[in-house]
């Protein structure tokens, strides 16, 4: 009996709703396009709009072994009122911490509207047994975390065990319950844009609410071409299935200029509908003060001393 050509081992995707064909990504061309979008010149009102949006969409993050309740408490205060001298400055979208610090963050952020996100699933490597990962997820959700940032099992992905990666995301999504699930692909370890596209589609098929570039633990993180590949995957899923998935670049976005470049990418790839904290987040630990400084500069016309902005 004739046999249909096999899909890569274990790469079974649900047929309904139909996923966009996996397709491929051309490295040279995608880098050229991202480079071109990075040259958009965003000035005056458009810049101010982008800077405020960058704050509203920010996941203010601390993920250090040295994190303490004191450090997280300070970060939470900053998250709610990034610039105490300027009441018009919005709060950030969420604070992102390790599981043990979720209770502290929750306590400090209660009633402020700023969400608490926790990394989980043996962040950053993901190299632990599934049950341990699920326990961790259930624990942070039980504590009251609003959002869970999980990592995919890159070891499984790179050895071609796509079904394992897929199943794990499905199980974590179940364990999340009401909490929003962001799936970290750790693109710096995936090696090719083709893999980034595959992993993006896989995560979305498995139920990710957001797909996220990186853990922030590698030097190669949220580059513009990687972001573009993921945004195009989100666009394809939306066009083919109607499903709306959010995007979070994280890692390496250190100044306002890079932050605006990412916003331009989202704007020109997915449109204005995605320019909201519900569908777009930027993970950052050291970006906020530069954005504040640029806002002050746009409003007053002069740069202020870095010491006028609090370090938390």
């Amino acid at each position, binding site marked *: 009996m004739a046999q249909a050509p096999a899909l890569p081992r274990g790469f079974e995707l649900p047929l309904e709703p139909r996923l966009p064909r996996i397709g491929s990504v*051309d490295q*040279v*061309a995608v880098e050229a396009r991202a480079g071109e979008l990075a040259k958009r010149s965003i000035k005056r009102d458009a810049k101010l709009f982008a800077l405020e949006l960058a704050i509203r969409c920010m996941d203010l993050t601390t993920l250090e072994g040295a994190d303490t309740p004191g450090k997280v408490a300070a970060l939470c205060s900053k998250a709610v009122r990034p610039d105490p001298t300027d009441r018009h400055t919005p709060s950030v979208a969420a604070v992102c911490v390790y599981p043990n610090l979720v209770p502290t963050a929750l306590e400090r952020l209660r009633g402020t509207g700023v969400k608490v996100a926790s990394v989980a699933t043996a962040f950053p490597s993901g190299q632990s047994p599934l049950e341990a990962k699920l326990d961790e997820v259930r624990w942070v959700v039980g504590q009251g975390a609003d959002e869970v940032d999980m990592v995919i099992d890159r070891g499984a992905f790179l050895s071609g065990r796509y079904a394992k990666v897929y199943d794990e995301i499905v199980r974590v999504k179940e364990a999340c319950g009401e909490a929003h699930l962001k799936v970290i692909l750790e693109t710096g370890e995936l090696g090719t844009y083709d893999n980034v596209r595959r992993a993006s589609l896989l995560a979305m098929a498995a139920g990710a609410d957001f797909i996220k570039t990186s853990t922030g633990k590698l030097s190669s993180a949220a580059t513009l071409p990687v972001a573009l590949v993921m945004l195009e995957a989100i666009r394809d899923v939306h066009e083919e299935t109607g499903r709306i998935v959010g995007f979070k670049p994280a890692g390496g976005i250190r100044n306002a200029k890079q932050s605006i470049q990412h916003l331009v990418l989202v704007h020109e790839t997915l449109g204005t509908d*995605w320019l909201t904290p*519900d569908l777009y987040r930027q993970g950052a630990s050291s970006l906020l003060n530069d954005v504040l400084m640029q806002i002050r500069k746009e409003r007053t016309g002069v740069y202020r001393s870095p010491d006028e902005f609090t370090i938390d």
Partner: protein
Amino acid sequence: MTEIEPRKSAAPAPTSWDYAPAPESRDVVTLRERYGHFIGGRWVEPQETYTTISPATEETLGEVGQATPDEVNAAVGAARDAFSNGWSALPGSERAKYLFRIARILQERSREFAVLESLNGGKPIKESRDVDLPLAAAHFFYYAGWADKLEYAFPNRRPQPVGVAGQIIPWNFPLLMLAWKIAPALACGNTVVLKPAETTPLSALLFCDVVQQAELPPGVVNIVTGDGRTGGALVTHEGVDKIAFTGSTEVGKAIQRELAGTGKKLTLELGGKAANVIFDDAALDQAVEGIVNGIYFNQGHVCCAGSRLLVQESIYEQLIGKLKRRLTTLRVGDPLDKNTDVGAINSRMQLDKIEELVAAGKDEGAEIYQPPCTLPEKGYWFVPTVFTNVAQSYRIAQEEIFGPVLSVLTFRTPDEAVEKANNTMYGLSAGVWTEKGSRILAMAQRLRAGVVWANTYNRFDPASPFGGYRESGFGREGGRHGLEPYLRFDE
């Protein structure tokens, strides 16, 4: 904690994020009220003049000369003197120094040139800044390197300069085409008389400043401006040894008829109707970028533009959907705005031609798509356009439109793609999009085109020869091949 104000409920998504205008400053350019001809290293007051404008605003930029046969004669005479009295006998390494100097000055003054190019030609500043200027400088650098190595480029053939080259260039890449013409001519020891296009003379006239700044010997580069009459006088002048022309096929044919039997060397770089072939395994989002770059780059005023899109039927709907969506993000408007993707049509005449052919496309039954787009009130503009349901027999599939208008056809198999792609009188360029390397090579062998791009489009490099088949012309510019038209060989 009491002082902390709760964040207001998540703000709804904005309805639009309008980029504020980001115009490049015009201050770097100093326009003169009146320009003469540049003959024998000096400015010569013209006998007749016409005005040159900005196609984006129709504002007058200055008065330039309309060279008469007498003035052309003077320019050819100056070029002949310079050729005989030193330039042709100069060691190649000395000629190279001048070319290197010109290249460096172009780099130093690139912003000035880029602004002027966009002002006079209507192309977006991001293109003149990132494409035209770097490539123009690169051409001078590249041919500077060949100037003292001609014996190695053509071993045992004793290359000699031809003499005086008459060069006529188009309005789509005014400075870049000047560089393509002047750099190899000078590297080979010739002197030149160049006529820029009627509508875009200003960057060539500014280039005369560079020539003076580089202290090039008088008469090595002469620039006369004017319309087709000036070009005609240059072509028929007996003192010219070689004609290099880039422009329309119609004029190219007329020049070839004119030169038949005169013994003058001739190269022609003419029109095109390139096929951009998209296979179903291509990286689609990047192919869409390539299609956009292929036909909307420089408002489609590109002889090698990918104006015929050939799409494999199995991905037709998906690809066209993506393409239409992408078109809605193109920013059409002020060429000097750094965020502009598509600028102004170069002239009233060209706009009329585009409008005429687009009307013909509609009449013949093709389906037209144009994204919503607000065009400036003054100036010459045309919305980026896609025609689907185009048959091979339609005029929009046959004739060169030279505007931002794409005709989409479909194919089923590689053989059919080759057959349709080659079914044209032109043969300048083609594009192939597939992830399969073997298919790229097979297609490149079978497509009759001077340049075949694979998974990219409109990419240029001075080291790569460029030129056409059939009605797209003959002779090559760029690379080692680009030296040959400017040399004779004593074999």
